[in-house]
């Protein structure tokens, strides 16, 4: 029954989307307010129907209704409840439905929060959003219906890929999807502005919170995925430059560029057509990610089982949405004349530098990801583009960005004073140099690149601190507490996010260079020294979980004579479907992570093990968390909330994140 309700709700949603995608445009063209106002009702109706459909699918998963093909192929009665629920979006059809749910949800939020938007503009935005929803609904209904029935229903389902049965991975896809879909709002705003032929500072003010929200979700989604890879794949790696990882990283980079360029539009009425383009590209790259995962064009560990009909459909959809919007851009961009002027040395210029490097990096990641296809299509054989290339690109493009990042926030709008700003961050320059030189000296010159990375990280973190100190100093006379309070949340958010980047860089640099690793075979009672910590192998025991069996290894870690912790890594064999997974045991210390993996049984009661000490790796998760907190802080700043009237005062003091 739930299946039929869900299916019916999808069809109704399709009708509403059809209305919502067309009628408001007619209304806007003819100046018919009733037609335009229909956009709000249509989007709410789409949201309601998508919610019903999604609830129906979730119900089918939770009750293990195997008469629904999708449930039978992706679930199992023995699966814990959490993974029954996460199974809803853990497959191709369900994840598309989740996309639709979020597209409608964000549309409804725009309708709700955007009451202050001019009716004409709002109806255009919602109509564009409805067009996106329409495309996804057609895709679901014609190629990927999650409500298809199976007759007779099997007694048991096939189960979910065990790698997905993990708390980190249960929430990693929805976070990413929320990020991707959040960018759809920026996209709809951009296309609506192109149709209307006008971009105002107010436009940027409306778009920025959505872009920021999407970016926060993307940051969280990427960080969760990365963390999952770190503890689940059992090799201590956390980023592999896999096409699907790149597919989430590119929109993240472009969204970050968009956040910054929208500030320039808002404050200075410049960079307008560029910002519009970024909004289009950010969402287009999200769609490309969906395409990559489902089309089978590129191989990836993450790929869904692919089906050519689906691939062709998504490609057509991609061509229409992305091709249509860039055509519109080519046609309308000349109308978006910039009016704000700024000098070569100014906050605006610093943000332009930011945009140059962030968007170049995104473009280069795209080139690297697709390059094997170019080469193969041109008949020059097969090549691989892996981490060494992307690491090179990151070093070339992120280093100048980080150097500029230390100074940028100190420059004034319009025309900045470079020598005064350099004076302020001079101590940070020294800290960076000293850090690099000390490292080169301590390692007798073996780690030049590491020293460079460490120097950059030290420069970035200390320049952010100096920048905060400088803000306090500007308010002479006031007590520290009141001066601190004067710093807006948006400013705190910016500092947090920038410092987060510094910590991430620190974590990457130090853990890449100084990880200690022991690959060895141990018998119970053996002790191995890993970076000064003694790992004693106590033995193994069998474990029976709800839908797996495992061998659990026991290690006691000593620092000198004292017991630090015990680590219990597992090697699991899931039953439905049969698959082995590694569960690393990790003990985070301030200085780094102790990391243990149990491998296979070797001869005579010994086991192969991998033991690591990964210094500073927590900087990655801490940094990503700081970025998210920074984003949320900035979002919570009154002046950024949509629809709220802004006082003149707020504007004047409004240097921003």
């Amino acid at each position: 029954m739930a299946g039929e309700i869900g299916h019916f709700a999808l069809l109704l949603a399709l009708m509403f989307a059809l209305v919502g995608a067309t009628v408001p445009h007619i209304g806007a063209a003819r100046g018919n307010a009733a037609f335009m106002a229909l956009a709000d009702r249509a989007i709410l109706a789409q949201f309601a129907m998508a919610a019903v459909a999604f609830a129906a699918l979730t119900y089918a998963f939770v009750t293990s209704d195997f008469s629904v093909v999708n449930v039978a192929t992706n679930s199992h009665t023995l699966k814990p409840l959490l993974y029954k629920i996460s199974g809803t979006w853990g497959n191709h059809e369900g994840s598309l439905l989740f996309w639709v749910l979020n597209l409608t949800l964000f549309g409804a939020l725009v309708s709700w929060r955007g009451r202050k938007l001019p009716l004409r503009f709002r109806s255009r935005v919602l109509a564009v959003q409805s067009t996106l929803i329409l495309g996804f609904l057609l895709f679901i209904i014609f190629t990927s219906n999650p409500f298809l029935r199976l007759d007779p229903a099997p007694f048991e389902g096939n189960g979910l890929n065990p790698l997905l049965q993990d708390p980190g991975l249960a929430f990693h896809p929805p976070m990413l999807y929320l990020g991707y879909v959040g960018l759809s709002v920026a996209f709809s705003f951009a296309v609506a502005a192109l149709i209307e032929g006008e971009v105002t500072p107010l436009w940027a003010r409306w778009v920025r919170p959505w872009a920021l929200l999407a970016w926060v979700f993307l940051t969280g989604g990427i960080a969760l995925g990365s963390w999952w890879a770190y503890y689940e794949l059992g090799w201590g790696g956390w980023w592999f430059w896999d096409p699907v990882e790149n597919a989430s990283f590119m929109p993240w980079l472009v969204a970050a560029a968009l956040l910054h360029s929208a500030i320039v539009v808002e404050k200075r009425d410049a960079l307008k057509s560029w910002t519009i383009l970024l909004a289009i590209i950010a969402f287009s790259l999200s769609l490309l990610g969906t395409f990559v995962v489902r089309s089978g064009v590129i191989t990836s560990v993450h790929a869904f089982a692919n089906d050519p009909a689906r691939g062709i459909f998504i490609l057509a959809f991609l061509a229409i949405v992305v091709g249509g919007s860039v055509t519109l851009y080519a046609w309308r961009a000349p109308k978006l004349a910039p009016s704000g002027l700024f000098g070569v040395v100014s906050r605006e210029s610093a943000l332009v530098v930011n945009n140059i490097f962030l968007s170049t990096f995104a473009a280069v990641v795209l080139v690297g990801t697709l390059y094997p296809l170019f080469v193969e299509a041109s008949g020059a054989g097969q090549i691989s583009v892996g981490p060494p290339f992307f690491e090179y690109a990151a070093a070339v493009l992120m280093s100048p960005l980080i150097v500029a990042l230390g100074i940028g926030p100190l420059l004034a709008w319009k025309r900045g004073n470079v020598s005064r700003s350099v004076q302020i961050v001079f101590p940070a320059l020294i800290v960076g140099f000293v850090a690099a030189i000390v490292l080169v000296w301590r390692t007798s010159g073996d780690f030049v690149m590491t020293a460079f990375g460490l120097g950059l990280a030290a420069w970035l973190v200390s320049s952010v601190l100096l920048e905060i100190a400088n803000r306090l100093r500007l308010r002479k006379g006031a007590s520290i507490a009141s001066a601190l309070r004067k710093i807006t949340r948006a400013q705190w958010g910016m500092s947090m996010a920038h410092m987060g980047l510094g910590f991430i860089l620190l974590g990457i640099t130090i853990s890449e260079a100084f990880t200690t690793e022991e690959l060895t075979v141990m018998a119970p009672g053996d002790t191995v020294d890993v970076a000064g910590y003694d790992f004693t192998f106590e033995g193994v025991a069998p474990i029976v979980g709800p839908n797996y069996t495992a061998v659990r290894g026991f290690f006691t870690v000593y620092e000198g004579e004292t017991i630090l912790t015990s680590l219990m890594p597992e090697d699991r064999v899931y039953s439905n479907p049969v698959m082995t997974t590694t569960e690393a045991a990790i003990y985070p210390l301030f200085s780094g992570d102790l990391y243990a993996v149990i491998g296979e049984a070797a001869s005579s009661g010994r086991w192969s093990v991998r033991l690591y000490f990964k210094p500073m790796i927590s900087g990655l998760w801490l940094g990503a968390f700081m970025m998210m907190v920074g984003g949320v802080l900035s979002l919570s700043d009154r002046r950024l909330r949509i629809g709220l009237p802004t006082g003149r005062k707020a504007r004047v003091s409004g240097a921003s994140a």
Partner: protein
Amino acid sequence: MKNKLFAVWVSLLAAFAAHAVAVDEKPLEDPALEAQARALMKEIRCLQCQNQSIEDSNADIARDLRALIRERIALGDSPENVKSYLVDRYGDWVLLKPPVKSSTYFLWGSPFFVVLIIAFLLVRRKQSQSVAAPLSADEEARLQELLEREQ
């Protein structure tokens, strides 16, 4: 009791895992050679698992290639030789770091020329509205005219 359970279970595991003939994996005695081997493994793509290096893959063939690399490095082969040995058998595909040659110039150069293109697009747009652009003679004349008319 516990031991018996364990035995049953190990035999079950064996039933699942007793696939191919496994290679015993041991790092090289000489840490310098092992470091060389490991660095090389990072650059060799796993043939079964896609987009992972053989260094961090559980796949069977990855393990075999690791053993092969260690063996050749231990015999005194240079990493470059081992690389070309693998390329001879699996093609450039096996290298995660694509060799610099005519088909990859575009790739390796991309960070540099993309940055130039984007900078050109952004900065040119900015210059067309540059603050410092002086008025042309024509504009100067018109300004003068307007000012005079004002008075």
